[in-house]
């Protein structure tokens, strides 16, 4: 038996918002692969739950007429990876969430839960940041839309107020069209492990002129929240695609990120692999764009 005080099942977003307001001791449960484990560990023992699994409107993926992609917060990792829209338009996101835990976890864990837990090691987060995603949050009173960057407040803390529910992760058309992305997760095991360090690079290359037109680099586990390397991005934009570019990203990343020592890895080790995985991810995005890398 799980130590759950009360259990409420919401059938709609409005009902979930009302239940959350009515029961201030409650929290949202979606896939359950984080919340149930925290209850088991005692960290969330005695909590009440508002279940949002039966809300169909927050599941699945759609592409709007203007090209914006709406990913329902309740969509599981495996459904994202296997979705034809994701495979065609933003394969990097499908590949990233295919590195969460193991198959059984990917069949229940959801992208909304991954983001709302606020864990810096979340495998979806670096890519969602590099795609400049917007988060649609409903509260039954009109709701709001926020850039993902403003949503993460600190370790395990996100800007979700009582009565609010993340319903969709929106990838605007202009943020992915013409771009290619690659995610690298560095962990001790190949599966069933969380990232020691992770990096998602999304870039746009002018293959005619051989110029890196735009680049976005986001690290997981290099700071308390997913970290966009804006200085490095600014330095790289407009550079010709050659060895110097790859050397610059490696060196600049090691200046810009400030990872911590933990039992998983030392700061020095994270700096070392940080430069390396950012470089490798950028090289891969250039290859995907059909760039001139040998």
């Amino acid at each position: 038996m799980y130590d759950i005080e009360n259990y409420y099942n919401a059938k709609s977003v409005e009902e979930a918002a009302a239940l959350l307001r009515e029961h201030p001791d409650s929290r949202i449960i979606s896939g359950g692969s984080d919340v149930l484990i925290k209850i088991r560990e005692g960290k969330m023992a005695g909590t009440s739950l508002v279940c949002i699994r039966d809300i169909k409107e927050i599941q699945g993926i759609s592409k709007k007429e203007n090209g914006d992609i709406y990913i329902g917060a309740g969509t599981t990792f495996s459904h994202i990876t296997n979705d034809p829209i994701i495979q065609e338009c933003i394969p990097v996101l499908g590949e990233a969430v295919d590195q969460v835990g193991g198959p059984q976890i990917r069949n229940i864990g959801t992208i909304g839960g991954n983001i709302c837990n606020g864990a810096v090691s979340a495998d979806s987060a670096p890519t969602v940041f590099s795609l400049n995603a917007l988060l649609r949050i409903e509260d039954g009173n009109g709701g709001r839309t926020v850039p993902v960057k403003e949503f993460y407040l600190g370790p395990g803390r996100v800007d979700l107020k009582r009565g609010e529910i993340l319903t969709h992760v929106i990838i605007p058309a202009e943020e992915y069209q013409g771009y290619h992305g690659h995610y690298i997760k560095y962990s001790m095991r190949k599966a069933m492990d969380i990232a020691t360090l992770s990096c998602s690079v999304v870039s746009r290359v002018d293959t005619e002129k051989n110029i890196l037109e735009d680049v976005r680099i986001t690290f997981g586990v290099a700071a308390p929240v997913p970290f966009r390397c804006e200085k490095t991005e600014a330095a790289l934009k407009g550079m010709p695609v050659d060895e110097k570019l790859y050397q610059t990203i490696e060196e600049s990343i090691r200046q810009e990120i400030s990872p911590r020592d933990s039992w998983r890895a030392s700061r020095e080790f994270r700096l070392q692999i940080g430069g390396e995985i950012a470089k490798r991810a950028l090289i891969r995005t250039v290859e995907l764009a059909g760039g001139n890398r040998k």
Partner: protein
Amino acid sequence: MIRDKVLVKCIVNGKEVAEYVDPRESLLDMLRNRLGLTSVKKGCEVGECGACTVIIDGETVDSCIYLAVWAEGKNIRTLEGLEKNGDLTRIQEAFIEEGAIQCGFCTPGFVMSATVLLERGEVLTREAIKKHMSGNLCRCTGYQNIVNAVEKVMKENAAENEGA
């Protein structure tokens, strides 16, 4: 305080089941304690070892971190549902032939993960098979024989399909 039980109707191994469950109860507990399906093993209880793996609507799930109330309307398969008239499935036989079993505690979970994989009918590399089986832990065999068994049946199925 939760006092009321909730009626859950679902299909387990092809049969309709209706059970009053506690909303705090895991699917693992429901399958073992209410339905007597003890192939579903209670291992880590935090979704790491895969010993409690069952198939829900065609996807593998750790039943320890899945609430019993979520089973409403679902089609659930456990190891008990695999055999037909006392005959093992090909993957179960292959586990025996390849020595992919030692203590046996992880075996039902591994067989369920392998079953989903084989039913998809894809032919995968050894690496891809390992990735698909990565949510199941075995502390005895060292995995080689388990992957051998899955690979063997996958190749047999592919040869059969080609012949047909």
